[in-house]
C-alpha cells in the first residue's frame, strides 16, 4: 500500500534553522506521510528540481532567516516555469513570517503558512486534506529529466551495511562524472527504510550535495520494511532509468545484513559492495554473502587505523571466491580521494 501523501521538505538557502522541520518531519511520518527531506541551506532551484524528480504532492518550507516572501515566490514561479504548478507549496517560520507577509505569499500562490504556536495536529490534518489522494504516482520520468543517449545505460548497483558510506561514495562518483564529462546525464535510484508506522523519511538527498544538479535525476524509494533492501517499484524504475537516455544509472540499496544479496536476476550490470574497514573479526568476513558475488568490493574509511589489515584480509577472502573481483580502498569523505578516483576509473573503463 502506497502512502497517500508524499512531501518534500527543506529549509531555504542561507538558513540552518532545522529544528522545527526536523520535528515536523517526524510528526508527518508518524502519521503515515512519506517525506523526502532535502535538508537546510537549499536553493529554490534545488528544491523545485528535487520536488519534480521525486514526484511529490507538495513542498513544505521552513524559513527563519528572512527573505521568505521572495524565496517562496521564487519556488512557486520555478514550479510554474517547469509546468509543475500542481505541486503545492506551504510552510512556516514561527513569528518571522508575519500575518501580513502570509497574506502576500498566499496571493503569490503559497497554499498556507503556519504561524508560531500552531498545534502539530493542525499541520498534519492540513497536509492530508490538501494534498491527500491527489494523483497516482506512476513510474515515469518527468519531462526535462531524460538524457539524450540512445543506447541502454549501464546500471551499477551499490550495496553494503548501514553506515559504510554508500551514499557519500555515489555522490563523490557523481562529482567526478559531471566534471570529466560535461554532457553527462546520471540517474540515481536510492532506497531508504521506512520507520515504524506508516510513513517514511527519505533523507539521502540532504547528504548528496553534488547530485543536486540539473544533469542528475534522482528518485528516492521507501522500502517499507521489505527484505532485501529494495522496493516493489525498484525493478520498474531501473528499467525506466536504463532506457531514459542516461550515461549511467546507480542503484543504492538500504543498509543490508550479512546474508543479504539484494541484486537478483540481472537487475544491475555491475555490483559494488561497500564496507567499512572496521567490520570486526575475520569470522565476520566469512559470513558476508555479497563478498562472493560483488564485482567490486570497496573498503571504505581507509583512514581508520586497521584499514591496511582490513584490505589485505578482504583480498584474501575474495581470492577464494570467484575470479575477476577487485578490492579498492577508499576514504569517501575525503575530498579528491585517490581511492575514489581509482573506483571511478574502473567504472568508466
Amino acid at each position: 500500500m502506497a502512502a497517500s501523501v508524499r512531501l518534500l521538505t527543506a529549509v531555504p538557502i542561507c538558513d540552518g534553522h532545522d529544528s522545527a522541520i526536523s520535528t515536523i518531519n517526524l510528526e508527518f511520518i508518524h502519521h503515515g506521510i512519506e517525506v523526502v527531506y532535502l535538508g537546510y541551506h537549499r536553493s529554490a532551484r534545488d528544491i523545485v528540481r528535487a520536488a519534480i524528480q521525486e514526484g511529490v504532492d507538495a513542498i513544505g518550507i521552513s524559513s527563519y532567516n528572512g527573505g521568505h516572501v521572495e524565496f517562496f515566490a521564487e519556488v512557486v514561479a520555478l514550479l510554474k516555469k517547469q509546468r509543475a504548478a500542481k505541486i503545492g507549496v506551504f510552510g512556516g517560520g514561527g513569528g518571522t513570517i508575519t500575518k501580513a507577509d502570509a497574506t502576500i505569499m498566499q496571493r503569490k500562490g503559497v497554499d498556507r503558512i503556519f504561524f508560531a504556536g500552531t498545534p502539530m495536529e493542525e499541520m498534519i490534518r492540513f497536509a492530508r486534506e490538501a494534498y491527500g489522494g491527489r494523483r497516482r504516482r506512476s513510474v515515469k520520468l518527468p519531462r526535462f529529466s531524460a538524457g539524450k543517449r540512445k543506447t541502454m545505460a549501464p546500471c551499477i548497483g551499490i550495496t553494503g551495511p548501514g553506515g559504510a558510506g554508500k551514499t557519500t561514495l555515489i555522490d563523490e562518483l557523481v562529482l567526478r562524472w559531471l566534471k570529466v564529462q560535461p554532457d553527462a546525464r546520471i540517474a540515481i535510484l536510492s532506497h531508504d527504510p521506512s520507520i515504524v508506522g506508516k510513513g517514511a523519511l527519505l533523507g539521502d538527498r540532504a547528504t548528496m550535495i553534488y547530485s543536486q544538479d540539473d544533469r542528475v535525476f534522482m528518485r528516492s524509494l521507501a522500502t517499507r520494511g521489505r527484505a532485501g533492501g529494495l522496493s516493489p517499484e525498484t525493478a520498474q524504475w531501473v528499467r525506466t532509468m536504463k532506457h531514459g537516455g542516461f550515461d549511467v544509472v546507480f542503484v543504492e540499496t538500504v543498509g543490508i545484513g550479512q546474508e543479504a544479496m539484494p541484486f537478483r536476476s540481472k537487475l544491475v550490470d555491475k555490483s559494488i559492495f561497500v564496507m567499512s574497514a572496521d567490520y570486526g573479526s575475520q569470522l565476520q568476513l566469512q559470513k558476508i554473502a555479497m563478498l562472493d558475488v560483488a564485482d567490486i568490493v570497496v573498503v571504505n574509511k581507509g583512514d581508520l587505523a586497521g584499514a591496511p589489515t582490513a584490505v589485505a584480509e578482504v583480498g584474501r577472502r575474495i581470492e577464494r571466491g570467484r575470479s575477476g573481483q577487485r578490492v579498492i580502498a577508499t576514504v569517501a569523505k575525503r575530498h579528491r580521494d585517490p581511492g575514489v578516483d581509482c573506483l571511478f576509473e574502473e567504472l568508466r573503463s
Partner: protein
Amino acid sequence: MSALARICESVEAHARFVREQIRRAREDSKFRAALLKRWRAIRASIATVQTPTGIELPTLALPTSNDPGEIARYLFGEGFPGEFPFVNSIYREMYLPGSGGRMPEEPTRLFAGLGLAEDTNERFHYLTQHQRSIRLSTAFDGPTLYGMDSDADGVFGKIGEGGVAIDTVEDMERLYDRFALGDERLSVSMTINGPAPIILAMYVAAAQRRFGGKVIRKLRGTVQADILKEVQAQNEIIFPLEASLRFLADMVAHTTEHLPRWYPISISGYHIGEAGATPVQQAAYTLSNGFTYVELFRGRGLAVDRFGPRLSFFLDCGLDVEYVALARVCRKLWAIGMRDVFGAGEAAQRLKLHTQTSGRSLIALGFKNNLTRTAIELFLAYLNATNSCHSNSADEPFTTPGEEYVRLAAHAQSILLEETGLFRHMMNLFTGSPGMRILEETLEKAILEEFRTIDRLGGVLAATEQRYQRSQIQEAAHLYEQQTGDGTRPIIGLNRYPASTESFVEPKVVRTPRSRKQLQVDRLRKFKHRHRHQSARALDELAGVVESGGNVFAELLKTVECCSLGQITGRLFEVVGRFRPSV
C-alpha cells in the same frame, strides 16, 4: 585512556579529595587549626557595605556554619570566589561597584546586526551610548554566515536580514566606524563560524587600514569559530570537518602569537540548547567539545597555558530548573579537567562565560510576556556569575529587535544589576542553598554520564560523525514540542490561559529595504571590478598555502585585501571540498 574517561576519573578523584579534607578538618587537629586560621583571615578580609536603607552587609556571603567540615567543603569543594574549582565565580569580585560607585566594566553585551554595515554601526552607537566599556557583539546575515557573496544566485532576499551583510574588508571598515578598535575598554565579538577565519582576517585588515599595524596587538574581542557545535546544532559549517578544524587551528596559532588579547574561539552551548537539547546535554556536549579543542591545539604544538586562557564559553539560560546551577557545574568540571588532565595553570582553568537568555522560550502569542521570561532568565544568568550577558528582546520571535524592545532588554540588565539590591551589595547572595546543592550534584552526575557515553562511541569526533549529538538533540526537541502540545510543559498564553486570537498583535518588524540590498550588491560588484587584476593571483596564492600546509590565516590577511568573502570560500571549496551535511 581517552581524555573524557580521564576527566570523569579526575572529577571522582577530586570528590574523594574533598571528602578527605572534610574528614581531616573534623578529625585532624593540626589541619583544623590551619584551616580555621585561614578562614578567619578570609572573613577579616571581607569589606562591609552600607545599603541605601542603612543596613550593613559584608560584600561577600560566606557559609555561616562554624563546622570545620563545612568550611573545608566550601573551600575545597566549591572554592572561594576566584579560586579552584571556581564553582562560585572565576574572579573574586563580579558585579560589585568599583571605586566610582559603578561597575568597572558592564557585563551587558547585546548581540546586534541588521541591514548594511552602516545600519549596524548606527545600532552599535545607539546601544553603547551610555556605556563606559564598549562591548560590541555582531550578528551576520545568512549569506555571510554561509560564506556567500551578496550577489550570489538566489540570496538577494536574505541580504541584511537577521544580521549584517559583510562581503569585503571595506564593509568591515564601515561596520566599526567611529569606534576606537585599539582601545582598552572596547571589545568586539563576532558570531561567525564556517567562514570565521576569513571574517576575522577582514576585521584585522580593516583595523590595520584604519589605525596602522600597531593596533593589531591591542585588538580585543572574540570570534565564535566553534565548528563542532555547527555540525551538532547550528548548521553553519561550510568546509569538511577536517579542513575546518585545520583552518581553526591555524587561526588560533596565529592569534595566540599576534593578537594576544583575542579570544579565537567561543565554545558554545547556546546553539545546542536552542536547537532543543536539554540543559544536561547542552553542558555535556559543550564541555566535551571544549576538551576536544584543547587536545587538537595541543596536537598542533601549542602550549595549553598559551591558548588555554584565550578559550571562552557561551551558554544558554532558559526557564528550566537546571539553569539555577548549570554554569556553576560547568566551571567546576572545566577547571578539574584542565588542571588534572591537561596540566593547565590557573588562567586556563577559568571558564570565561558569556550567557544569552533563551530565545526559544520566547513566545509569539502574547509576546509582551517575554519581558517577564527574559527578566527571570537574566536573574538566573547572573546568579551563575556569568562574565557577560545578552538579554533577548520581547519581539524575539518575530524580528531582529526594534529599538524600543532592545532598549527594554538592555535596561532589564541595568535594573537587575544597578537598581535592585540583588547583586550590587553582596556577592554570592544566593549560593549554598540546599536546593542549589542538590541540583549541582544531580547535574554533575548526569553530565559525567554523557561524557562516558560519548567516550564509548569513540570520543567527540567519532560521536559527532555518527550523528550522536545531533540525534539526541533532535529527539529532545521533538519531546519538547510534544510536551508543549499536550500541556505537560505549561506555556502561559499558549497552552495555558491563552489569549483570544483576535486580540493578537504583532510588533513592528525590522526589514532591509530592496534599495539597501541593491546598494550592497552594487558596491560589492565595484569592489570586485576594482580588484579584478589582483584577485586571481591572491586566490592562487591562498590555494598554494592550503595545499602546502602553511598557515592559512596568515595568508588570508593578505587575500582579504582584494578578494570578497564569496571569492575566497569559492576557491577554498575547490581545494578542500564542501561540508557534507548529515541531517
